């Protein structure tokens, strides 16, 4: 049974367990796990942190109540967030041996809140992919169905949370990379408002879309982690100065307007998923919510828009990995003494999907094509933003599936990148328009695979999303019992 943060803190308070023992259990489970969820485990560092926590606990007699909401809580960190002194690979051969000399703001905040970092979690290379099969360190296996993918790109994070290889995890979401694996693995994942959590120290994939996001086994832990991570950071110029919108009253389902876009419940979505989500929405309706049919005219362009913008930014963001400072230097290239050979040797180390996106992005930005691709996509992005702004003036939240299908088999889609890209259809609008979205476990299909339900809300309305998510989580719990 996965313990929540609250339960762990209770066991600390009662003296039943101390942080070092808890961390040792987690480390042992990680070592025994076949999932390949971690790329780097920092066992010694984690144990040292845990022993310090033991001392604090011994001295105070209980968990410190202020400033330490993650006291003694084992966390996993996606391997594209810098932790000073610990290897950060981004699941790429290019950064195989790279040790950052500084920590990401998100990582600093989590550790400052008392969390104990177990290690760096597997992912799709440079966060590019939806299955975690694009890792130079091997795929992550689905935590309950090992022949299937856990989703990506934060596949290690979602699988680790589900398999109790960490209590909570930090992922990143550029086009669904937190929400999709959370949905495949049956855990909770949030893509916050763009700018809500600092990107400083997050290796950029597509800077205008990237957001750090929390993943946890339940809504409350997701919110606790979110509250630790959220807040302005002067080192990130896109970091928001404004606070999360505070609701006027405690959350109430009565009268909540839930938008149901016609475009998101169509033939291409597995009928089991549609059924499961309709059932949940009806449940909420029975509790007082109002279901409002919606139209999002430009949503069919979202995937194309997303991929044009994401690959364009990626082609630029990844150009620093040129071999001058990163990557193993192939001796032949060094001896050739020619700069071009040098660049080629290093950049040959990128995986196929990363290369594909660099080439696509370079093309989309190149002279003669930039208007038709990059600039046109930027214009459509504005139309999509307008669609959603309009929608959020009519409804409080929008519901959709997270993905058109549940977790698929490893290797099943590797040869069809386009099919993989289409899988992001429901998740990319939140990144394109910058609003928050949460992925919630909503039952299972016939094969026992988790189904994910997504709620989206207007800019900065995370608190509303958490309120609704708790309501649904509680209802489903009551239903089961």
């Amino acid at each position, binding site marked *: 049974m996965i313990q929540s943060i609250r339960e762990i803190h209770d066991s600390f308070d009662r003296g039943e367990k101390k942080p070092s023992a808890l961390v040792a259990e987690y480390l042992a489970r990680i070592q025994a796990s076949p999932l390949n969820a971690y790329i780097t485990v920092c066992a010694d560092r984690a144990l040292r942190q845990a022993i310090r926590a033991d001392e604090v606990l011994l001295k105070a007699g209980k968990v410190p109540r202020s400033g330490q909401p993650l006291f003694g809580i084992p966390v996993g960190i996606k391997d*594209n*967030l*810098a932790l000073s002194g610990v290897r*950060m690979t*981004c699941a790429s051969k290019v*950064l195989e041996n*790279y040790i*950052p*000399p*500084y920590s*990401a703001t998100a990582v600093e905040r989590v550790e400052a809140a008392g969390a104990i970092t177990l290690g760096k979690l597997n992912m799709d290379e440079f966060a590019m992919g939806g299955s975690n099969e694009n890792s130079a360190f091997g795929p992550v296996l689905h935590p309950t169905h090992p022949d299937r993918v856990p989703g990506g790109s934060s596949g290690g994070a979602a699988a680790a949370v589900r398999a109790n290889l960490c209590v909570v995890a930090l992922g990143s979401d550029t086009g669904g990379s937190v929400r999709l694996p959370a949905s495949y693995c049956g855990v909770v994942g949030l893509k916050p408002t763009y700018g809500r959590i600092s*990107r*400083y*120290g*997050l*290796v*950029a994939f*597509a*800077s*205008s879309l990237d957001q750090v996001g929390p993943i946890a086994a339940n809504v409350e832990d997701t919110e606790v982690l979110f509250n630790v991570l959220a807040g302005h950071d*002067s*080192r*990130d*110029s*896109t970091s928001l100065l404004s606070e999360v919108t505070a609701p006027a009253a405690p959350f109430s389902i009565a009268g909540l307007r839930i938008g149901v876009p016609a475009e998101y419940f169509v033939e291409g979505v597995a009928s089991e998923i549609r059924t499961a989500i309709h059932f949940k929405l009806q449940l909420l309706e029975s509790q007082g919510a109002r279901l409002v049919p919606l139209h999002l005219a430009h949503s069919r362009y979202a995937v194309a828009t997303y991929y044009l913008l994401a690959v*364009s*930014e990626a*082609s*630029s963001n*990844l*150009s*620093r*990995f*040129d071999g*001058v*400072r*990163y990557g193993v230097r192939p001796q032949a290239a060094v001896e050739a*003494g020619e*700069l071009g050979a040098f*660049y080629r040797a290093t950049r040959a180390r990128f995986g196929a999907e990363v290369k594909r996106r660099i080439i696509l992005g*370079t093309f989309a*930005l*190149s*002279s003669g094509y*930039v208007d038709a691709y*990059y600039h046109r996509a930027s214009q459509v992005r504005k139309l999509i933003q307008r669609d959603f702004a309009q929608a959020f003036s009519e409804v409080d939240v929008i519901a959709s599936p997270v993905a058109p299908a549940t977790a698929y088999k490893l290797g099943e889609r590797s040869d069809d990148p386009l099919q993989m890209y289409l899988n992001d259809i429901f998740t990319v609008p939140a990144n394109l328009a910058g609003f928050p979205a949460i992925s919630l476990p909503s039952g299972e299909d016939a094969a026992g695979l988790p189904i994910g339900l997504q709620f989206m809300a207007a800019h900065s309305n995370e608190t509303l999303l958490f309120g609704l998510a708790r309501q649904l989580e509680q209802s489903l719990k009551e239903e089961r019992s």
Partner: protein
Amino acid sequence: MEFEAVIGLEVHAQLATASKIFCPCRAKPATGLSVGESDANLYTCPVCAGLPGALPVLNRKAVKYAVMAGLATECTVRTESVFARKNYFYPDLPKGYQISQFDRPICEKGRLLINTSTGCREIGITRIHMEEDAGKNVHLSGYSLVNLNRAGVPLIEIVSEPEMKSAEEAVAYLRALHEIVIFLGICDGNMQEGNFRCDANVSVRPHGSPVLGTRTEIKNINSFRFIEKAIDFEIRRQIEVVKSGAKVVQETRSYDPARNVTQTLRSKEEAQDYRYFPEPDLPPIQVPADWLSEIQQHLPELPAQMRQRFQKNYGLKPQEAAAITASRALAAFFDRTVQLLGGRAAKAAANWITGEVLRLVNEAGQQIESSRITPQHIAALVELTAAEISGTEPLVSSTGAKQALAEAFATGEAIQEIVERLGLKQVSDSGAMESAVEKIIAGFPDQVAEYRSGKEKVLGFLVGQVMKQSGGKANPSVAQELLKKKLS
């Protein structure tokens, strides 16, 4: 056929901010460091070293300096301008792209007045944009090293319209721009150290033709003299190419000062596609109207305005005004001095400052602003020597004044005290001087006889003797009057 040249200049000026444009690293020492120096890569951090995950944060001072440059050149300053990424691979560019500006630069459509032998003319400024400097590659035998101290130093690129017609005009434009950035205090302007760099676009066409010829770009010329020579050479070369029936090739060229020629660096076919797009890590630069007017209000007086004011208000000649505005510090020193004098004897003050003061300061290898000489010293000297203040009889002779100034330069002591201490006051009192005059008349009977016989030139000799007798204290005009009276 007559040909005319068309020249446009692109100037890169490093902004003299304390820290870099996108991180807190020091920007000042980032110049011309060789690999042998121990501090290579010392002034770097995750941001300017382009470490994965690091993000830029804009230095507000750099924006202010760019706006100042724009206002000083009568540009329109955009309320909202946008950074863009310029993508290319080079080892000194740690991120693989330079953060620059592309289609929405901070300043546009300005102008600059230049003075040449043919008169005064206006040159258009197309744009001024902000960007970060790159690092520096150091090539050694068999390998190269990269020093990132300079990476992230703020730059403005000032692009002129292709409106200059000769190397002389190009240099005049460059000097005017150089003077402005230095007066504004936004750039150190040291060309050798690369604070102020210039690329020249040159083309030729038949005189009066409305169509521009094919241009070449001459890169990174690091002195005014070389710019003049490089452009002159390039104009001659292109005219010869066209006359021979061949075509000028669009290319980038470099100037070799040793041989005084330009030569091909790379051709247009190798030109890069920089794939510009808006920098997603930085929000647009905002220059709201109130900030703009605040900068405008505090904009220092520009050298051209200052020269006009000095000529108009103080009656300086153009060359005197030019000499006094050779640097901002000198001009400020002059302004303060004239202020202390209540606006009187400004010409005399200018002469003292550009003459004796600069000589002392330069000989000692000092700067006027950090030397012991103050405007108070000069004002005091002028009061003691200038005819328009002290009347026809200056209280201290010019020799005595120079002596006092040298003393003040050495000790910083007030002029009045020096004059007292060294007894430099001229003796103008007729009674006190009479005995000295009588002594000389008695001592030099031959010369007195000569004078009396009509040889008036001898009077100068006798005045000199009186001066000598008085130990330099005598007021020569008083001595002369007295001698004349006695000998008549």
